[in-house]
């Protein structure tokens, strides 16, 4: 809410300091990556030690799908199509 309206709040024109402009280039991607990386490669606070984890393959396939076709929905479906058989079928 605050971010969406950031520049609509004040009436008079104003700009951002230089460093903040530059931080905007990296912070959003960094924030999301910071949230999802532990969700993919960690279990209960520990780095997983096995490659038998459905999440790894699902994330890789999802990412590959995104760069192939674009689109959030397709990424989700492609990733889940890998995740569900591995997770439910093989118990990974």
């Amino acid at each position, binding site marked *: *809410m*605050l*971010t*969406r*309206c*950031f*520049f*609509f*709040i004040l*009436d008079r024109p104003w700009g*951002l300091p230089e*460093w903040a402009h*530059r*931080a*905007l*280039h*990296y*912070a*959003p*991607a*960094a*924030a*999301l*990556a*910071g*949230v*999802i*990386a*532990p*969700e*993919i*490669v*960690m279990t209960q*606070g520990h*780095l997983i030690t096995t490659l038998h984890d*459905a*999440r790894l393959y*699902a*994330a890789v396939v*999802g*990412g590959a799908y*995104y*760069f192939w076709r*674009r*689109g*959030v*929905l397709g*990424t*989700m479906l492609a*990733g*889940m199509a890998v*995740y*569900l058989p591995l*997770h*439910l079928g093989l118990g990974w």
Partner: protein
Amino acid sequence: MFLSPTLRRQPEFRAGMRDMASAALGIGAWGLMTGVAMVKSDMSVLEAVAMTLFVYAGSSQLAAIPLLAAGAPAWVILATGFCVNLRFVVFSLHLRPYLMHMPRWRRLLHGYLTADLSYALFTKQYTAPPTTPAEQLSQEAYLTGNYFVTWCAWMGMSLLGIALANFIPQTWGLGFAGVLSLVAIVCSMATTRLRVLAALIAGATAVAAYALPLKLNIVVAIGVAVLLCFWLEKQFGLDPDAEDDK
């Protein structure tokens, strides 16, 4: 804003709705999964409904879910949400000349309801800010029609997801769909080499610093990634704006 009949009567309102309709399915499916993910993270149905109705920000909502489940303090959740949503700061800077002729409450409402896709479609449709009152009205109508579709698709499907979540067993691991949609969003943000690097650094830092209390590993990850990228920019004389064009 879509309650205003003057705006609804504009032909641009329908045009905006039409342009958005093709994307509505994707937004709806994403909303559905967000709804399911919220309930799967042990949020009560009431909390999940409240979050859907009031927050209305898909990516930061999804980012907040694991934090809420881990019991992170409010300021960490807010700081993460703020950083995830930083792109809207850029959007609002861009949209400012389009909306400055309106009173403040109206600007804030438009800003709140304009999500990524509406912003992209709106600025594609209108490359220059309005100059006459007629243009002002038609542009506002287009924007309103556009986010009206988004809002309905998102809200309807999120609530459906919350309703259906209890019929889907936890062991299916459907909550992972939320993580996968975040994977797609990160990929869409990683448009330059430095941004790819920032995402990789942040991911690695967040894993390495996982032992920190209060989910501070995410705040640390953002800080490390941004500072390292600043340093690399200086070191190699890279210009982030020029990188954007690649």
